[in-house]
């Protein structure tokens, strides 16, 4: 049996360098992945956990090169299967801190089944889904999050698949922490990484990531300085949904339908606005659905954060209960079974 990991704080204070591996990073220059990698390497030292407890698991795709660039334990697996491999790692040793790096193709197309089932089980694994709405590594085919009508290498006349909304999919699968953030908003991205680390259960973080080669600017409306404020609303627990350059706009619920109100018009005040509650799953679905109304700003932040017993905790408990009831298994007795006979 593997020895239990000493989860005490590391002897030295880690810096960003401690999480950088000796491998050259080979993403295209200008790729949004660089920022995601940098924010993780920046935030991990804060957690003050021994480096050897981290395991990065990935599938195939640009995002899945991620484990090679982190100086932690890691498996670069096969296409779409990272959640399954990670599940085995975590269940074999629940003391490990397991992170999955995946993309919209790897995690939602070929690996969609593993993703929803991992989230449903609430295994304490953190998923970073790099969403660039395109297949990068295979050079530019459309992905399950590409937009309707998008022209790509494999859709010269435009995409006719309706896209997944990753946040809605994760909510539907029963993930206990679901969030959205952006490669070009480092502070917010860092905060979402912290939230994932501190969550006990499956955490799903969708990260809008710019593929500057095959889908450049897909999220610029949300990520760039001049347009961000009018097109993004940040979700904060217990706070009203306010956005706009001067914080002059807000989101109000009309029945179950979110609508924009002007706070300076005299027709509505902050008191009328929708107040975010991370523990309200109905609200989480409403916020996730805002993506379908192009007039509405795009919510960023934690959609839901609830606590349910994790899969590995329940498994560990079942083993402990069986042992307290039957004692540590006796192998000879097990082999003997219920009915034996002796031949002289």
């Amino acid at each position, binding site marked *: 049996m593997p020895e239990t990991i000493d989860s005490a704080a590391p002897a030295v204070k880690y810096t960003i360098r401690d999480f950088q591996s000796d491998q050259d990073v080979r993403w295209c220059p200008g790729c949004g992945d660089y920022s995601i990698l940098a924010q993780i390497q920046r935030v991990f030292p804060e957690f003050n956990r021994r480096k050897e407890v981290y395991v990065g698991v990935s599938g195939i795709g640009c995002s899945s090169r991620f484990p090679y660039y982190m100086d932690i334990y890691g498996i670069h697996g096969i296409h779409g299967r990272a959640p399954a491999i990670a599940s085995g790692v975590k269940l074999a*040793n629940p003391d490990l801190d397991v992170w999955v790096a995946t993309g919209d193709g790897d995690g939602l197309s070929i690996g969609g089944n593993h993703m929803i089932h991992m989230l449903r089980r609430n295994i304490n694994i953190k998923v970073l889904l790099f969403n660039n709405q395109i297949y990068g590594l295979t050079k530019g085919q459309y992905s399950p999050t590409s937009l309707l009508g998008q022209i790509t290498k494999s859709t010269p006349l435009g995409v006719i698949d309706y896209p997944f909304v990753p946040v809605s999919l994760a909510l539907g699968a029963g993930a206990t922490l679901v969030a959205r953030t952006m490669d070009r908003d480092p502070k917010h991205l860092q905060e979402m990484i912290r939230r994932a680390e501190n969550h006990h259960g499956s955490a799903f973080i969708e990260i809008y990531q710019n593929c500057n080669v095959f889908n450049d600017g897909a999220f610029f409306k949300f990520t760039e300085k001049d347009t961000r404020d009018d097109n993004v609303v940040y979700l904060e627990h217990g706070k009203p949904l306010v956005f706009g350059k001067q914080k002059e706009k807000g989101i109000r619920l009309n029945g179950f339908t979110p609508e924009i109100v002007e706070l300076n018009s005299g027709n509505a005040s902050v008191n009328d606005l929708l107040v975010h509650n991370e523990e309200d799953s109905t609200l989480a679905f409403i916020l996730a659905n805002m993506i379908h109304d192009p007039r509405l700003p795009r919510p960023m932040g934690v959609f839901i954060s609830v606590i349910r017993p994790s899969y590995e905790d329940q498994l560990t408990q079942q083993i402990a209960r069986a042992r307290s009831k039957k004692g540590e*298994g006796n192998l000879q007795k097990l082999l003997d079974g219920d009915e034996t006979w002796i031949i002289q």
Partner: protein
Amino acid sequence: MAAKKVRTLEDVTIRFAGDSGDGMQLTGTQFTNTVAALGADLSTLPDYPAEIRAPAGTKYGVSGFQVRFGSTEILTPGDVCDVLVAMNPAALVTNLRLLRDGGTIIVNEDGFTEKNLKLANLSSNPLEDGSLTKFSVHRVAISKLTANALSDMNLSPRLVEKTKNFFALGLMYWLYNRPLDQSVRFIEEKFGQKDRDVAEANLRVLKAGYNFGDTTEIFTTRYDVQAAKLPPGKYRSIMGNVATALGLVAAARKSGLDLFLGSYPITPASDILHELSRFKEFGVKTFQAEDEIAAICAAIGASYAGSLGATTTSGPGLALKTEALGLGIMLELPLVVIDVQRGGPSTGLPTKTEQADLLQAVHGRNSEAPLCVLAAATPADCFAMAYEASRIAVKFMTPVICLTDGYLGNGAEPWLIPDVDELPEIPVEFAKDPATFQPYSRDDKTLARPWAIPGTPGLEHRIGGLEKENVTGNISYDPDNHDYMVKIRAAKIQRIAEDIPLQTVEGDESGDLLLVGWGSTYGSVKTAVSRLRAAGRSVSHAHLRYLNPLPRNLGEILRKFKHVLVPEINNGQLVQLLRATYLVDARGFNLVRGLPLSAEEIEERIEEYFGGNHA
């Protein structure tokens, strides 16, 4: 009541047949356990439909269970049966071809209603139309006698109907002079606590069947089968799938590793998952995954984290696991894959047996992807081979596929229980030293790479499906490195040949004809060869349990015989491997009917050979 005669038999084969809802598998298993506990040697063959509850009374809903037991060595469940217990017309007519001429039929005559005759597509009642004259037919009103035994209990007609298999069981216990106590204990344990009425009803009906044998005029003779002369020791009856499960648990315990099973339900392998899910106190973690791919991937992840990762499946599932097996080969992690083969291709014959996954196991992956393949020969041998698969997987840091099949998995035989202290050691050493650790350095002898598990300070490293640079394990696209790695992965698997036993031959070491078998044909081939050897034929038998790599003396053995014949339940797979590996003119004998090969069929084929037909 006149005392009835008791005749002693050397061996007897009984087939229980009824609707899939009639409890024939339970009846057969109960009879088997009782017979086993009295020391007879035995072999069983369950034969059930793919549908859980096919429409009652139809031919395709018939479920059968054959048990052969004797005071001599029993190697097969019998090519034909001596006694057929049939609960309805469909069960009778579908199994009649398996009853020897002059054999005994015991029928539930109450099952021969107009409706059931029609469901079995019969225009006349075989009990009355003279079609059964070459058999000895005993008509017993099993349904009515069961109802009579329970008349004062005020039970639902459905429940009464469901207990009638115990009447048949009780009757067979009487006829073969076996005591009721094992089944009485079973009923008490299974139903006693939960439902007193059900327990009481089953007990009454079991005894009613037994007493009926004693009092009726129908049966004038009882039969006795003495204990077999098996090697001394402690025995139990064991099914192949249970033996496989125990083999994995034993290997985990002996290696000091936690067993992690990732599995997706599939016939006929699911019982291994069921068994292992009960062994929590042994630290066994079972993970019922969302699909076959997730099952093996989780097992690979668990092995990476320091568990003994295993996955269990059948042919279609193995096909789905193919890509992940390649990953396992690239990562060079221990992984045990159990394939309980069934009829194919595609969904094929889910509940029937076959040996047609051999080439899939040995070769069925993209690119150069060698791994170790083993095969169990008998139900009890599943324990040894699952254990051996685990030992090799850990020692050589490689995936190992252990092939069993539906017949082995569901069949049972007496098992000389091993002493835990005498099981082979499975030493495990995790890498610990950051100063010397290289992910893809190799042990001189085994060529295995070190096993460094997350949680070990200073050994943080990345592995993955991309080609590895020798020693460092970094990604490498270098042509010569790839050539080297392809060859070193193959050489590692070949090194396993130095670690496994030499092939043995049953019979003379040289001669006219060598039969080379593998897997579940063991009993039939051995029976056929022994009979012909007794008749003076120059024929021997080598049975392979190691299929990749093959035993290092196999080529030498093959060359000592004029001809090599390879009986297999496939269209010629091992024969291809032997021809390709050794350039011998081996010939195949192939019947692919979803059934075990019978000793008689093999015997006929050998006689054909000696009759001058060498084709």
